[in-house]
């Protein structure tokens, strides 16, 4: 009995030591769901760049999940150096509830702290059997729509707002009819996953639903990973300009002494490397001149409404109005049976 126990004790010792004795700098980037592939490549590139610049080694660790859920874990104490979330409101929540990020964080980096943007498109099954061309087709009889839950997912909030923007245009701002349309849309949703990637897997791998409301980059990725023989992208007449922002979590970085490298990491997102890598991963780069024109040519032209449009009045207004407790989404959403 003593011998195995001793082995066990040594094993535990080794395991504990090896997790704590990493001499190199480690950054933690807490991100939302669909950025996995982009940051995997970006982190490797940044580590190399940082090593060339300073001779130091840096490892960037990732945590992915629904944007709202990720913000929640940072608020609860996950010590992220950097947050790269799906929407401003989630970083605002961290800033206001913990004070770990200053309130004016958006002004600290170029392009309102959004190094890449994206939009919402439709992914349908090959041949588009339900003939889906625009937002109004989503509420036709027998069409099942897949989107994550706007309460937990940033992408889902953009989906919701894009649908709202369409309805606003279609019904010339008649709020009653807009609500009716968005409510009907969610009546067509059989499963509400917590994050964008969960929804994509539900639609693409498990074969549920007729149309997926997806981040443009997520839709392209599904085409690449599962195959263009199975799906096609449908570009609606109007959509929303989604600006997923990034921020330094000052208090955490200062505590760990990683501010310098964390700031360099964020600035590197705006470098030619970061921008072209974003375009390669189907994010629309903030500065297209730095990206490969061939990558840029893949992005379709869509009429894009921004969150700062008077229709929404910015995140500070849109977040509580639509997604807060008892907000419009709560009022119109009835789970489908």
């Amino acid at each position, binding site marked *: 009995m003593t011998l195995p126990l001793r082995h066990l004790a040594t094993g*535990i010792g080794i*395991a504990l030591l090896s997790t704590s004795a990493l001499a190199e700098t480690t950054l933690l980037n807490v991100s939302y769901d669909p950025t996995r*592939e982009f940051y995997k490549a970006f982190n490797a590139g940044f580590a190399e760049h940082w090593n060339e610049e300073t001779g130091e080694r840096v490892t960037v*660790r990732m*945590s992915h999940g629904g944007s709202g859920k990720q913000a929640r874990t940072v*608020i*609860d*104490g996950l010590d992220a150096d950097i947050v790269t979330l799906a929407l401003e409101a989630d970083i605002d929540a961290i800033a206001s509830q*913990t004070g770990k990020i200053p309130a004016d964080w958006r002004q600290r980096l170029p392009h309102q702290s959004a190094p890449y943007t994206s939009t919402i498109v439709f992914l349908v099954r090959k041949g588009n059997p339900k003939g889906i061309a625009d937002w109004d087709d989503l509420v036709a009889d027998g069409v099942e729509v897949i989107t994550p839950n706007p309460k937990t997912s940033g992408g889902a909030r953009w989906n919701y707002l894009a649908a709202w923007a369409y309805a606003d245009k279609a019904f010339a701002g008649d709020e009653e009819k807009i609500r009716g349309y968005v409510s009907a849309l969610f009546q067509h949703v059989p499963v509400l996953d917590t994050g964008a990637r969960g929804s994509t*897997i539900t639609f693409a791998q498990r074969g549920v639903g007729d149309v997926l409301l997806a981040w443009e980059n997520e839709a392209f990725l599904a085409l690449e990973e599962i195959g263009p023989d199975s799906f096609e992208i449908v570009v609606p007449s109007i959509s929303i300009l989604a600006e997923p922002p990034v921020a330094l979590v000052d208090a955490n970085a200062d505590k760990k002494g990683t501010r310098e490298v964390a700031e360099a990491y964020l600035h590197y997102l705006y470098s030619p490397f970061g921008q072209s890598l974003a375009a390669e991963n189907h994010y629309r780069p903030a500065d297209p001149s730095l990206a490969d024109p061939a990558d840029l040519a893949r992005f379709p032209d869509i009429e894009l409404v921004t969150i700062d449009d008077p229709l929404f009045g910015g995140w500070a207004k849109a977040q509580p109005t639509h997604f807060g407790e008892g907000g419009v989404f709560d009022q119109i959403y009835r789970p489908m049976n």
Partner: protein
Amino acid sequence: MRSETIAASVAERPAKAWRPATSETPATRRVLIAIAGIFLGLVLLLPLGAVFAQAFSGGWSLYLAALAEPDAVAAMRLTLLVAAIAVPANLVFGVAAAWAIAKFEFRGKSLLVTLIDLPFSVSPVISGLAYILVFGSHGLLGPWLDAYGIKVAFAVPGIVLVTIFVTLPFVARELIPLMEEQGAGEEEAALSLGASGWKTFLFVTLPNVKWALLYGVLLCNARAMGEFGAVSVISGHIRGLTNTMPLHVEILYNEYAFQAAFAVASLLAILALLTLALKTFLEWRFAGDMAGARGH
């Protein structure tokens, strides 16, 4: 008179080891067995087989590559570490609790028994959230621990704690019925012959419950390594740092790395099968020594 007839009728029957307990026809029996078999096949074996089929869909080399990948290795190491702490902790707790409950009378005993069962009835997600409420930065102890630089939530200690919580009943639950059934007679005899308390425990109590103890440890370990919900809430999902094997499987699956996901999942499936085999062996060989196991 009557007993004679019965005796006669018994004598008339051919000596048979097995007699049907019901009067159903063999056809009904076969149909019932077939239903049970098909059901188990569909619900248990088919999905389990699918895991292995998917895991080996790219051949041995890809299978091994998926297991050797640094994040996968980190996940396995963390899973082993968590089990290596949680299982002994619950072993000690389980024996102590079972000893106290089975051998002593005290106020609040039934409350203690109920509390031990609590993790069985609480959803694992709630267990995880409860620990966030205690150890999160806005929790009861979180800010205080933070001041000393001790991290519990979203770090290994938190994962270990919730694992201990969800696996707490396994050892105690196996031991309590057996120890209660055995009573305190042998221990009293040992004590009256002058053995110390520790000696009594080591040479009298422990040998009496060893198989039940092993059985409890086995189940405890299987759950400790396989727990998803509670760990998912408190882990923070940092790749290579706070992802256990079940969490790593989910991450890989969500990254379209289906083959790799199922390769790691197959390890958990193998663990489950091993546990099942050992459990069956213990039940078959030492059923008499495991009162608690009879009902399972």
